[in-house]
């Protein structure tokens, strides 16, 4: 197959068997207690904190089925304080959290009025560190805000196409080295409103197992047939392609109108990078089209921050639809789609977002313009390149130290999204709370965002993190890893890999 110019190191180590046993045991105990508590609540032995239906509407069909919310009521509610934590400062490398206490085991929260200051932020998507309040840096944004105001009050096709949008679109096209680009007001909506415009009934969508909800929603709304291939698995994708073209549409066997492959640049829950060269080879061989969602990878990978296309040294023309968001690396909001001029012209006339949804607001557009100019070096400094290099260095250091300590960490060595596996449900709450006690804010994810037996803590490394901050976090992780017995890895790597020959592929089919 294709051989990569750089080593492609991805790891998805499996934990020892006893971990899986204890995980399911933990969920089992939780479920049993859940049934017990539901029983007690139904019989009035325990106070029910849930909101209830109005008296006048008690004989209506119930809005929610009891079992739908079982998981929420009984398992999620116990550790609910680890999510939706409100902050009261800029989400930079350090932030201030609002102190929240609960008097009734997470059913309601109350703010004490105090702020926990200077918590190290390992959760926000601030890859290049553009979430900043430096007055100099934000000067142009403040000017645009003063001149244009905050609203737009119209759609792109009507009266909402402002000169800032035109400027931004030209800049994005230049940044990505493509013919044209179009920007939208929300990243999620970019996917869910443009995929239906590109494909419809009679087309086939081949989507990766672990695609983001916005891609899945866009694919569903389009009405095309959807087939799922195993995560990053090229054999599975090729098999689907061959079968699809040979057999045609189900039951009628007519030829497919188009085949669209949906993949992401970096997968946000796994930290894996898409195998782009292989997918492009496949797509050219079978005449399919490729839609690449670079929400997490634009600005974060690649020698100059141009995303996975640059990371693999490929030509942006090989990808038919380049999509990305500005929320993560550029510290703003919104999304874009870029590609050939015909594609962008078609989207200008047929996209749901351009016709019915408000366009991006001008100050946000200005923030993207200034961040992008910084990354491209157009502002006359090398700050952008420095940020990209700093991010890459931080990523490598962080991942390497975690591997050395013996944690199971998923994903590619170059991805700034670092999932650290926790597995057991009890450890999710313990991990997040203890890290907060040490003044470090982490993000933990469990079911249903991840498979039920693979809960994890997800770190997002940022270019704004200094070596000291990363060391603080790593020391805290070391301590906590020993305390909670999180160091499951059986392949801890030594810190001197050059001392012996280690193969760099660990492909799991």
């Amino acid at each position, binding site marked *: 197959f294709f051989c990569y110019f750089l080593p492609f190191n991805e790891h998805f180590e499996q934990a020892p068997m006893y971990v899986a046993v204890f995980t399911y045991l933990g969920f089992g105990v939780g479920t049993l207690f859940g049934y017990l508590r539901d029983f007690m609540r139904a019989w009035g032995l325990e106070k029910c904190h849930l*909101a209830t*239906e*109005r008296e006048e509407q008690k004989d*209506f*069909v119930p*809005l929610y089925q009891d079992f739908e919310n079982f998981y929420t009521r009984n398992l999620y509610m116990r550790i609910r304080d680890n999510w939706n934590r*409100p902050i*009261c*400062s*800029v*989400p930079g490398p350090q932030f201030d959290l609002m102190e929240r206490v609960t008097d009734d085991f997470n059913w309601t929260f109350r703010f004490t009025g105090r702020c926990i200051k200077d918590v190290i932020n390992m*959760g*926000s*998507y601030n890859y290049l560190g553009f979430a900043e*309040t430096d007055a100099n840096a*934000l000067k142009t*944004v*403040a000017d645009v*805000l003063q001149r*244009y105001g*905050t*609203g*737009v*009050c*119209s*759609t792109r096709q*009507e*009266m*909402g*196409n*402002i*000169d800032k949008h*035109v400027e931004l679109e030209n800049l994005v096209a230049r940044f990505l080295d493509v013919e044209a680009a179009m920007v939208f007001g*929300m*990243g*999620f*909506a970019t996917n*869910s409103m443009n995929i239906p415009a*590109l494909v419809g009934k009679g087309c086939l969508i081949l989507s990766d197992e672990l695609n*983001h909800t*916005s891609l899945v929603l866009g694919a569903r709304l389009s009405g095309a047939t959807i087939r799922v291939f195993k995560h990053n698995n090229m054999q599975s994708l090729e098999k689907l392609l061959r079968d699809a*073209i*040979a*057999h045609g549409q189900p039951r009628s066997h007519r030829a497919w*109108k*188009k*085949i669209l492959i949906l993949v992401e640049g970096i997968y946000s829950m796994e930290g894996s990078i898409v195998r782009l060269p292989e997918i492009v080879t496949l797509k050219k061989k079978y005449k399919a089209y490729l839609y690449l969602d670079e929400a997490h990878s634009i600005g974060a990978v690649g020698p100059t921050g141009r995303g996975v296309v640059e990371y693999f040294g490929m030509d942006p023309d090989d990808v038919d639809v380049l999509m990305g*968001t500005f929320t993560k690396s*550029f*510290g*703003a909001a919104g999304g874009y789609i870029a590609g050939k001029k*015909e594609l962008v012209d078609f989207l200008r*006339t047929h996209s*749901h977002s351009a016709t*019915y*949804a*408000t366009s991006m607001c001008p*100050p946000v557009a200005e923030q993207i313009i200034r961040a992008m100019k910084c990354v491209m070096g157009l502002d006359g400094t090398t700050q952008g390149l420095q940020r990209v290099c700093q991010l890459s260095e931080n990523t490598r250091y962080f991942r390497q130290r975690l591997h050395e300590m013996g944690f199971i960490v998923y994903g590619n060595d170059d991805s700034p999204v670092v999932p650290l596996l926790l597995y057991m449900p009890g450890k999710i709450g313990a991990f997040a709370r203890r890290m907060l006690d040490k003044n470090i*804010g982490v*993000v933990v994810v469990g079911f249903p965002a991840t498979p039920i037996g693979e809960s994890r803590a997800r770190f997002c490394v940022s270019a704004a993190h200094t070596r000291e901050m990363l060391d603080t976090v790593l020391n805290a992780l070391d301590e906590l890893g020993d305390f909670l017995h999180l160091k499951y890895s059986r392949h801890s790597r030594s810190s001197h890999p050059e001392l012996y020959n280690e193969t760099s592929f660990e492909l799991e089919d």
Partner: protein
Amino acid sequence: MMAAAGVGQQWVLVEMVQAFYEAPAYHLILEGILILWIIRLLFSKTYKLQERSDLTPKEKEELIEEWQPEPLVPPVSKDHPALNYSVVSGPPSHKIIVNGKECINFASFNFLGLLDNERVKNAAQASLKKYGVGTCGPRGFYGTFDVHLELEDRLAKFMRTEESIMYSYGFATIASAIPAYSKRGDIVFVDEAACFAIQKGLQASRSNIKLFKHNDMADLEQLLKEQELEDQKNPRKARVTRRFILAEGLYMNTGDICPLPELIKLKYKYKVRIFLEESLSFGVLGEHGRGVTEHFGINIDDIDLISANMENSLASIGGFCCGRSFVIDHQRLSGQGYCFSASLPPLLAAAAIEALNIMEENPDIFQVLREKCKRIHKALQRISGLVVVGESFSPALHLQLEETTGSRENDMKLLKRIVDYCMNRGIALTQARYLEKEEKCLPPPSIRVVVTVEQTEQELDNAALIIREAAQSVLN
């Protein structure tokens, strides 16, 4: 020991044979058939759901070679009406510069004129200094700021409901709220003229959709009666099928108001829940701008969910849903646009809070706005060739052709000429844009006329005059 075991075994064998003889015939036959069936299943070939057809590898290769896909996008003609956007230089406020011409803005939904307001801009500037621009995360992962919580609180207090939830994009608000409650198998009765966001929300929910004629309560009652008959046939299913009526306060596509008191009567008679979409009526109708519930004097708890976007009256970006905690809290874990998308930039939230403050301090602007709407509605009557569509107090009116030429394309060309004529004389108008192939009930082509509180009476009269002239010059 062994002998005893042997005897024991023999005993068991004898018992078995005895049982065999004593068993009734049908029992033996049934067992025999079952055994034969099991043997057959064991030896028959397994079959897969996806057809494993008999293509030889060579045939497969040929088919793969021959297949030609359509181009990714069909070519778009250069003079497609929606291709060339008008470029606005500077803010889209009361005086707007479109394509280099300075005009009075009759096209942006800036109803209360808050786009240009100094207080709103100052609040946004303060927020910019404190928080930067983006939130860098969804609400669940450190994307919740104190400004978001404050705005949700203020909106709930303003609308006098228990709780409200905020989204970062107006379109995504109703398109995420509907699938959170209505699932496959549920029934939704929706008006024909519902806007596109509602249609997408319904499509994502996979529920059964029943359209009733625009604002026709008799038609809706008919559909509800039919549904009741269906329910009686299958009461078990009916007990778990949720039912919703979806209506807009002020319809975007027709400028009409929904008959809310009748809807409430139908709600309690047939036990259906009501979801209301108030994007155009929030900040316009009602004594204090609380929308269509205040306009009709209805208890807001009677409506299960009110959804509105902040992009019209509040001149910000985003949307919100408000209602009782019982209903709204569910969206915090199942609203897709809320859980899986980054939260609203804090400067926009701060702008919205300040806009709400202004709305609460000056409750008389709503009456002023309605007066202006009535004025222009009256002034645009009796233009030969054009028909005004919309209520007299609706700030977003449509001007449709009285007599269509027969083809939508030609109608749109005529309307474009009227718009250009007005643009050249300093009135910025726009055609209402739709996706022709995607809409369920495509409205006829029209020109949008939007009234804002900043337009003076002279400007309104002038605009009506110019539109009259334009219609005369183009249509005669």
